[in-house]
């Protein structure tokens, strides 16, 4: 049975079902209770499950994670919310030195089944610290799983898997897509490390995740107009990366473009392209390309459209892997957007 939900509502449904299904599940974060979160993602959950299980916390990110660790020692499964990507840094030690390492430190005797929800990414026209993509900091840390979602279905199923996991998981929610609508089947089960081929093609592979999957699908549709078949992979998991699926694709296409909103330096694209070169060097017909945020701080949002990976930049990169001149100037963006939305579902 499916229902049509926005991505934000799909997250809400996953949280509600997790709370309903396991009384050791708790939510904790700033403004998640009465307000329902600044994006209303937790709307109605405190009213339904009570303030003991949907906890409005004081304003201290390190403490949100640190106290969730203490609750984990006692067998609770805490889903914490960091209000915005750019607010996560005060909790950095508790995430990378504590959550990530307690199992290793205790030689397997301590389990930290935390989920850390983080709305991330740009294109919401906001002010500084509200549009960042900090996933690589955490992907670099052993002991953490880092996942994201590109559609309401992916958001629902991946978040359920994250909450059910005995490993700690950072779940990055593409806030620019919170109002994307899609069909959600609550019975669909996802794991936390398998990428998904969302469009098949023979000529070029685009690997994307979170908010850039839709852009990649639009690129595939535009390229098809010119007879170019683009394969689009939704990585889903940022750590561990499903290199196998990408290598398998590149062995067929010989060309790879990786796209994400985060800056390029020491990023998911750095890691993915390195891994593909290590394992599929002989299959590459062209140098891999990447279309990412620039290596700058996130810019003022009035110019974020120049910073974020766009359809045109992505198509240029596809052209470069094919040795073609870049010529896309007359795209019908509206048509591509609606077609890509259909494909993403």
């Amino acid at each position: 049975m499916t229902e049509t939900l926005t991505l934000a509502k799909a997250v809400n449904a996953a949280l509600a079902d997790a709370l309903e299904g396991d009384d050791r599940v708790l939510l904790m974060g700033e403004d998640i209770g009465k307000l329902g979160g600044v994006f209303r993602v937790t709307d109605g959950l405190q009213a339904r499950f009570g303030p003991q299980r949907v906890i409005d916390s004081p304003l201290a990110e390190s403490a949100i994670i640190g106290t969730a660790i203490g609750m984990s020692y006692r067998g609770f499964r805490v889903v914490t919310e960091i209000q915005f990507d750019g607010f996560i840094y005060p909790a950095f030690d508790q995430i990378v030195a504590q959550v990530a390492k307690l199992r290793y430190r205790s030689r397997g005797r301590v389990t930290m089944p935390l989920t850390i929800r983080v709305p991330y990414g740009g294109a919401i026209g906001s002010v500084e610290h509200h549009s960042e993509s900090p996933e690589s900091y955490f992907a670099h840390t052993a002991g953490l799983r880092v996942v994201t979602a590109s559609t309401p279905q992916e958001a629902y199923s991946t978040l359920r898997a994250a909450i059910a996991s005995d490993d700690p998981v950072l779940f990055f929610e593409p806030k620019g897509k919170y109002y994307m609508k899609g069909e959600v089947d609550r019975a669909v089960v996802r794991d936390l490390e398998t990428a998904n081929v969302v469009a098949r093609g023979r000529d070029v592979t685009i690997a994307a995740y979170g908010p850039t999957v839709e852009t990649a699908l639009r690129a595939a549709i535009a390229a098809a107009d010119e007879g170019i078949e683009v394969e689009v992979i939704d990585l889903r998991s940022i750590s561990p990366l499903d290199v196998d699926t990408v290598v398998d694709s590149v062995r067929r296409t010989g060309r790879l473009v990786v796209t994400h909103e985060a800056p390029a330096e020491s990023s998911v694209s750095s890691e993915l392209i390195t891994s593909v070169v290590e394992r599929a060097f002989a299959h590459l017909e062209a140098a891999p390309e990447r279309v990412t945020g620039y290596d700058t701080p996130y810019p003022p949002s009035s110019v974020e459209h120049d910073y974020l990976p766009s359809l045109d930049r992505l198509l240029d990169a596809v052209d470069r892997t094919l040795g073609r001149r870049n010529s896309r100037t007359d795209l019908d963006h509206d048509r591509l957007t609606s077609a890509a939305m259909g494909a993403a579902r």
Partner: protein
Amino acid sequence: MSITVPAPDPALALGLDCPLRVIDLDGTRLSEPTLDPHLADIDETALADLYVDMVRVRRLDTEAFALTRQGHLVLWPPLLGQEAAQVGAARALEPRDWVFGSYREHGFALLRGADMSEFARIWKAYAHGGWDPHEINMAPSQIIIGAQSLHGVGYAMAAKMDGSDDVALTAFGDGATSEGDVNEALVWASAFQAPVVFLCQNNQYAISEPVRVQSGVPLALRPTGFGIPSMRVDGNDVLAMLAAGRVAVERARAGHGPTFIEAVTYRRGPHTTTDDPKRYRDEAEVEEWTAKDPIDRVERALERMGANVEAVRAEAKIRADRLAKEFRAAAEHAEPPTADAIFDNVYVQPTRRLERQRAEHRAFVASLAEGAK
């Protein structure tokens, strides 16, 4: 969890002028109105037990120090001088309570029953953690200053949510009071009235920095700003520490929330075996605190009570020697971890990526063995 803010109380801190004390330096039993009601059961035998505890803790500490100098351990952070602070507080807890401490909590580890052969492995660089936390209800030792205070508060909140009256104690040093995490822990403990005991062992130094670098006011004053009652206690008086611990634990169990204890003590040894305290403090200061030795003081108190001190001392020595022997054997004969163990326990559900790296390393090691043939 609902947030309740207790009304400000001007009398939230006790002992600011003079740390609370019930055994004087010469062993005289002093009257202390807050602590006395919590010591009614302490007879000669109970005090002798605390004495034996402290002697054992000290023996473990001195043996580990020697083992480090002899090359059997790689590092040791001594607690010499802090035995009463740890023994008193540890004995105020029940086994079902949890302890979240730093890397210097050897007294807590010993008294809660940590397996000494596992404990030795930490300081031999054979393992990051030295006991089963769920077996002795004590989290792995924490090296990041103050990080464990939040874990203690979270555990206490969880205990309260479970409707139990279990208590968490978090132990840290004077330097930790400057950390954001400890201040956030105080905010949360107050906001949620968590059943937690904050034990700050003010041993006067954070490596080389004296406590005045951290605070211009007594550390025990700070929690009062968070609405948390506080006691400044003579940390070299094991009975005062036991009683203060009991006050705090009873408050927590009864649903009255957090309590802060500043144990005023002194780290007579170096920060760790790699430290050189002569660079930052005078020997005279160490001698001054040696005169306030927590173990000597209890011997004098036992004498005044008319106990057979010789017998107590002999019993303590037998048990301490046995412990030292056990610890030395563990340190000398521990089996090192295999290289393969590098890859264990990173995830509950092993990842393909990590298993591939494990296989690559195994193959590399095997290739070396092959080459040697």
